[in-house]
């Protein structure tokens, strides 16, 4: 379970980075919001120009960009740590791939979409698709703490519970963009009798997902495929779910992915997408979200939030579309349009049925 445990020093360094994130989330954020309010504009670009010289926003944006680079590439950063142990980590994955090999289906001919290759998502140089070290680095990084410091494991229960409600009798379940399979295993626990398959374009993360599922003694399948072109026949699936996927895809790719989801779903089958989508807090909320997208190299978090998902889903052949902020629970003030007291990445659950 712990192939490359962080040294005492590396773990202490991550505490330091977490401390910086605390400043970003609290004081620097609040000062930035005040500067934005002083700007008195409804246009995020105008807010950006006017708030730019506020010391709080300078610090906020510096921390947003660079605390992540510290987390990954500082002297004790997670990516550096894993790269130094790459050979061991590759062997661990190779060995795991030999156990129950039918559960891990890789496709070396699959072409990585350009939007995956070119973006350095989360400022992870070269992305998570390169090699074993990248896969382990992403896993360690994302299981330690999310960007806005909430516990990333909590929402998994919500994900599983929503899936059960949406498709209680599901026998064939897909988890798109599964990375190391945390969300896929949550689905398997919700549907112990179903065939649950996690899909991703990145091979090393799928190998790691396979290893973790063997360790958890869960029969989960993983397949290297693009959600824009699913290797499943028409009307063969009961539930298509995704956990943090669409904010990493440009609108055209999201659109193709929705059409594909509809194609493989049986009539009445369930669709769910848990991701950053609804952005509370009016123009200032949108400004902060766009800034995050730019600074943490998640450009499609910006374009996804700008899509009209209700229309898109309808056009792709879905009905009964519902969406709401699912995590963390927004306060009544936030629901009424106020900004939260700490910088928060609100997660939206979108559900629908195949019409």
């Amino acid at each position, binding site marked *: 379970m712990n192939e490359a445990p962080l040294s*005492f*020093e590396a773990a*202490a*360094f991550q*505490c*330091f*980075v977490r*401390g*910086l994130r605390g400043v970003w989330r609290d004081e620097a954020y609040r000062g930035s919001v005040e500067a934005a309010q002083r700007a008195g504009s409804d*246009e*995020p*670009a105008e807010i*950006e*120009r006017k708030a*730019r*010289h506020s010391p709080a926003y*300078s610090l906020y*944006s*510096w921390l947003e*960009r*660079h605390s992540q*680079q*510290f987390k990954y*590439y*500082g*002297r*004790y950063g997670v990516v550096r740590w894993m790269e130094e142990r790459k050979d061991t980590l590759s062997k661990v994955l190779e060995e795991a791939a030999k156990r129950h090999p039918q559960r891990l289906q890789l496709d070396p001919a699959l072409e990585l979409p350009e*939007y995956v290759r*070119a*973006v*350095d998502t989360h*400022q992870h*140089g070269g992305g998570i698709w390169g090699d074993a070290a990248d896969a382990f680095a992403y896993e360690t990084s994302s299981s330690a703490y999310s960007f806005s410091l909430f516990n990333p494991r909590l929402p998994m229960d919500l994900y599983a519970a929503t899936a059960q409600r949406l498709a209680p009798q599901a026998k064939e379940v897909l988890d798109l963009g599964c990375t190391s399979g945390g969300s896929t295993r949550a689905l398997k626990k919700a549907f112990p009798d179903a065939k649950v398959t996690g899909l991703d374009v990145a091979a090393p993360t799928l190998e790691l997902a396979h290893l973790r599922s063997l360790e958890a003694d869960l029969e989960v399948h993983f397949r290297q495929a693009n959600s824009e072109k699913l290797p499943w026949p028409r009307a063969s699936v009961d539930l298509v779910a995704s956990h943090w996927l669409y904010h990493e895809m*440009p*609108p*055209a790719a999201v659109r193709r992915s929705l059409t594909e989801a509809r194609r493989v779903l049986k009539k009445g089958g369930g669709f769910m997408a848990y991701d950053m989508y609804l952005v509370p807090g009016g123009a200032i909320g949108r*400004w902060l979200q*766009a*800034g995050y*997208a*730019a*600074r943490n*190299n998640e*450009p*499609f978090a*910006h*374009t996804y939030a*700008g899509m009209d998902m209700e229309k898109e889903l309808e056009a792709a052949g879905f009905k009964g579309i519902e969406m709401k902020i699912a995590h963390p629970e927004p306060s009544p003030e936030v629901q009424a349009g106020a900004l939260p007291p700490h910088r928060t990445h609100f997660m939206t659950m979108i559900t629908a049925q195949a019409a």
Partner: protein
Amino acid sequence: MSAKDDLVAELGKLGARDPEAARLMGMVMALAGEVFVLKAQLERLTRALETGGAVDAKRLAAAAAQEGMTKWLEAEEAAFARSLTAPYLEPDLSVNATKWMRSE
């Protein structure tokens, strides 16, 4: 320019507001990270020594004179200086991905 493009253009000026300050900030924070790690190590060591009753002034002086300690200092001075100045030379390690925010 549309409001949307205007925002992306503004945000695309990553690090443009004061690049010198951003570089210096990187060095300061790298230093702070080292100091934090060091403090944690020292805290751990102090606790271990207190529990074991292991250390006195004479033993510390003997340790400082060891050849291993000298070698450690030589290696550490190079690594320390490099990690402190790296953010100045390379303040922003990521690609600028904002053009993707215009994706249709």
